[in-house]
């Protein structure tokens, strides 16, 4: 991978980390507040269903995870397992795409 691409991956991971820091805080705070009233599927769906704000929030959350996680795992695999190169990069791209697809499917399930 070229120095330019690797620098962009690094930037994408830092930027997605900043987004995740905020998203995780909001997510945890919401969970803690929600549990106070008793945590049920009906209550969660009541909050999220048809709500464009929660849809947007969790879509951004999922996108940040799908960018952040595979870049980090790629680095760990390269350092600890010596797994590098085009094959590895293609694999992590698939992992990112799969994370995004699974995540968006889950968001759709609680919002639609």
């Amino acid at each position, binding site marked *: *991978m*070229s*120095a*330019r*691409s*690797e*620098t*962009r991956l*690094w*930037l994408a991971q830092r930027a997605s980390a900043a987004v995740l820091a905020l998203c995780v805080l909001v997510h945890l705070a919401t969970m803690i507040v929600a549990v106070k009233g008793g945590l049920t599927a009906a209550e969660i769906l009541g909050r999220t269903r048809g709500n464009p704000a929660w849809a947007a929030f969790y879509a951004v959350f999922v996108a940040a995870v799908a960018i952040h996680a595979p870049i980090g795992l790629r*680095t760990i695999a*390269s*350092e*600890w397992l010596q797994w*590098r190169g085009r094959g590895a990069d293609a694999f992590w791209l698939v992992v990112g795409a799969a994370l995004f697809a699974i995540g968006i499917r889950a968001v759709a399930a609680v919002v639609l």
Partner: protein
Amino acid sequence: MAMREPELLEVDVWRSGGDAGGQFRTYAVPREDAQTVLDVVTWIQRKLDPTLAYRFACRVGMCGSCAMTVNGRARWTCRTHVAKVARGNRLQIAPLANLPVVRDLVVDMRAFFDKWAKAGGQFTPTASRRDDFVRVAPDTPARREVDAAIECIGCGVCYASCDIVAWNPAYLGPAALNRAWTLQNDVRDGDHPARLAAVAGDAGCHACHTQAACTERCPKQLSPTTSIAGLKRMTARAALKGEL
């Protein structure tokens, strides 16, 4: 009056040879005041075993040739007092990590210095001998960055202390990146874009996890970690502007 028996140091020294590539051999060395680890190694070679191979030159912390692993840590041995590092009366002296051993305490530094070249470690002049001297004000921000990082003696202590070097053989390492940072801040240098491309990416500054082992161990109290962070900022800006 009977002379006091000198206190003895028990020194385990790495010796090459044998099936395992080498083993520690123990030597008894008289302990003295103001004794450095290099003094101990020299005493062993002069008095006990002339076949011991090690490297040194200046003995005063300038040349960067005497670095070894002392009690598990990379150190410059000529400026390391035994009193500071001995555990009781024991010392263990081994070659630097992350570099191939030539013999005993001597490592092959080629990979270390080849990476300086790969990181664009050479100054590229923009003026000729017919031009006047460039005047660089010492209080400019760029020159201050250079001053903070320029005193590297190339001893390899940072390189031997870096986990990323151990994990990723292509990683340029703290010293080479620190050198590149000084040149990127040198207003007289004419090779900034190419050097920036050379130090970006998984073998360059972006591989650094900011664990700062290099900075903790640097005998000159430099901070390669700061230099590498500077390169990360510089490359990020260039990438965002499409200049990388």
